[in-house]
């Protein structure tokens, strides 16, 4: 066996292994943690390392050759018609999301080593972290709708159990209950929509469904149910209340993965709008006249609705963040506002979708939205990690009681400054590049919306500057005199994310051309996605 053949085998089976290895690791963790706690931590990190090997091999291949990879489970790799087996279909967008999931999960595991040390129940904790990672990988890589639902449920059940980790506090349990109710209902509506599609076309494969879609009334019902349920899971107003609750009450390492899980739901919205319904929406959009008695096409009205909700989401997130006194809850509301930016990109793209495809401001908005998914995961993630480090050191979460920590926690306060500027979209950091794309494209639709978006960004800056002042600056509080700097694993986790933030902030063009650009092209090019699976194309 030469090196090339081994690498070829790795590449062929990489899609399945990315999901299967964290699963195997999760099943093995309860057995290994009976031996020794340190061994368990090493094992979990090495499982993550193995997964990142496969992700790296596959990402390298997909971003250089820009082909769509498929992997058929249990049968020959040759695609048949009709597609009966489950298949994974991986294009540049899936790979982009898989990279986010990998970064988030890897950093969270490193962070947990120091952060969770003193608590009991760590064997189950690490099991659930691995399960959640596998679930998110499954959500972003799969090419089958029902499979997407199954992984959506794995992710939400695992995250619910992790939110309730601190069982001695009633608040965590309450947040977890809210989360499970919202996600159970959302997932059931997703399943209902899948059943509607299955009943009409007798197919579950995304590409097959997209190619045979007739865009009947039932399909529109399914579209609204899918987008509504997944947007609810992504935390859009008016269904945003679970998000700050659960972000605020989960352990910080779990919150970081939860950010990734929210992004995976958002990926579902993007996939449904532009791939599953891409053909139908682009052929019917922007055609004036009566369609089923409605004066507007469904895609356009959905676009208007999403833009409005996105603006409301931003404003609600920012204004609620202003009056919070709980550190992590405040960042949770900032996360709600950030979701608004991504939704704004999606809404503008939906508005400007045309029979010839997407171009001009729509494409730019979509690019900005997708780029912002990555940046949001890093920025908000870093803020939560800093909040977690402060909690680790002081065991205090109220902003009124914290103060003067910059003396004892120098590195942590530097990381907070980096995260602060990145979240607010200041030039040398990564948030600037993606927010600028969104502002520019929104400006061409409506200048007022663009101004609202910029204003809420500035207000986010103000909120975080206030937090920085009250937590890290100010007079030293005697209670926190002996506070120590966060342990090494927390610092390593924060360094990894900060380096990525600064790197992307300095070279946004490189990142945009090599990773975000292909991902956006893959999302817009629905016929390529269909051709990769359906024989004979469209």
């Amino acid at each position, binding site marked *: 066996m030469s090196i090339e053949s081994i690498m070829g085998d790795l590449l062929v089976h990489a899609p399945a292994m990315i999901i299967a290895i964290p*699963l195997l690791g*999760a*099943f093995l963790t*309860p057995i290994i943690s009976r031996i020794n706690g340190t061994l368990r931590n090493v094992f979990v990190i090495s499982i993550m390392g193995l997964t990142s090997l496969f992700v790296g091999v596959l990402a390298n291949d997909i971003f250089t050759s820009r082909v769509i990879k498929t992997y058929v*489970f*249990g*049968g020959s790799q040759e695609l*048949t018609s*009709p*597609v*009966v*087996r*489950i298949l994974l279909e991986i294009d540049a967008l899936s790979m982009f999301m898989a990279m986010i999931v990998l970064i988030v999960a890897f950093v969270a595991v490193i962070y947990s080593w120091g952060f969770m040390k003193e608590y*009991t*129940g760590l064997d*189950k*904790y690490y*099991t*659930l972290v691995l*399960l959640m990672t*596998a*679930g998110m990988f*499954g959500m972003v890589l799969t090419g089958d709708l*029902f*499979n997407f639902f*199954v*992984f959506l*449920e*794995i992710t939400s*059940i*695992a995250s*619910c*159990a*992790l939110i*309730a*980790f601190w*069982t*001695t506090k009633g608040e965590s*349990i309450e947040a977890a209950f809210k989360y499970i109710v919202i996600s159970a209902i959302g997932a059931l509506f997703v399943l*209902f929509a899948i059943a*509607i599609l299955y*009943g*009409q*076309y*007798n*197919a*579950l494969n995304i590409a097959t469904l997209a190619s045979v879609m007739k865009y*009947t*009334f*039932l399909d529109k*019902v399914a579209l*609204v*149910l899918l987008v509504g349920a997944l947007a609810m899971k992504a935390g859009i107003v*008016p269904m945003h209340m679970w998000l700050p609750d659960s972000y605020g009450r989960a352990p910080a390492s779990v919150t970081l993965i939860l950010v990734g899980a929210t992004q995976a739901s958002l990926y579902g919205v993007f996939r449904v709008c532009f791939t599953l319904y891409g053909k139908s929406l682009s052929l019917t959009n922007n055609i004036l006249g009566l369609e089923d008695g409605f004066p507007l096409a469904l895609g356009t009205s959905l676009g208007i609705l999403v833009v409005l909700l996105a603006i409301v989401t931003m404003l609600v997130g920012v204004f609620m963040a202003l009056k919070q006194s709980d550190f992590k809850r405040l960042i949770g509301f900032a996360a709600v506002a950030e979701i608004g930016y991504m939704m704004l990109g999606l809404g503008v793209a939906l508005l400007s979708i045309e029979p010839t495809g997407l171009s001009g401001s729509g494409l730019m908005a979509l690019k900005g939205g997708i780029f912002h998914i990555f940046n949001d995961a890093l920025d908000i993630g870093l803020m939560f990690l800093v909040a977690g480090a402060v909690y680790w050191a002081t065991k205090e979460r109220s902003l009124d009681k914290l103060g003067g920590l910059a003396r004892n926690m120098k590195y942590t306060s530097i990381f907070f400054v980096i995260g602060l500027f990145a979240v607010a979209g200041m030039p040398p950091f990564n948030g600037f590049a993606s927010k600028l794309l969104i502002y520019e494209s929104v400006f061409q639709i409506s200048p007022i919306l663009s101004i609202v978006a910029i204003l809420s960004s500035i207000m986010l800056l103000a909120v975080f500057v206030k937090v920085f002042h009250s937590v890290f600056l100010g007079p030293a509080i005697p209670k926190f005199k002996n506070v120590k700097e966060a342990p090494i694993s927390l610092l390593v986790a924060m360094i990894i994310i900060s380096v990525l933030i600064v790197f992307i902030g300095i070279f946004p063009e490189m990142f945009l051309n090599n990773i975000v650009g292909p991902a956006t092209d893959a999302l817009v090019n629905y016929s390529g996605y269909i051709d990769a699976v359906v024989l004979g194309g469209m």
Partner: protein
Amino acid sequence: MDKRTIIGSIFFTIVLVFILFAMLMTHPFGDISESDMDDTIIENCQEETGANNAVTSVVFDYRGFDTLGEATILFTAVAGVILIFRRVLHD
């Protein structure tokens, strides 16, 4: 009327309309227009998997990956329940 009732009523009404329409528009019970995928499975399942039970061959062979996910969900639930009650169990 608190906030939850109002939002709930709007949400409920929208879903009510959607589901009633969806149920009215679905094909009549038992009258299936498209069945390509399932017919392929029924025809080939004996030769390909050797199982006489088409449902089992779907569960463990054609859609085996879903079953892995399903088994994982049960595993997740057990881990979650034990995690939540860890203090009660080890007092």
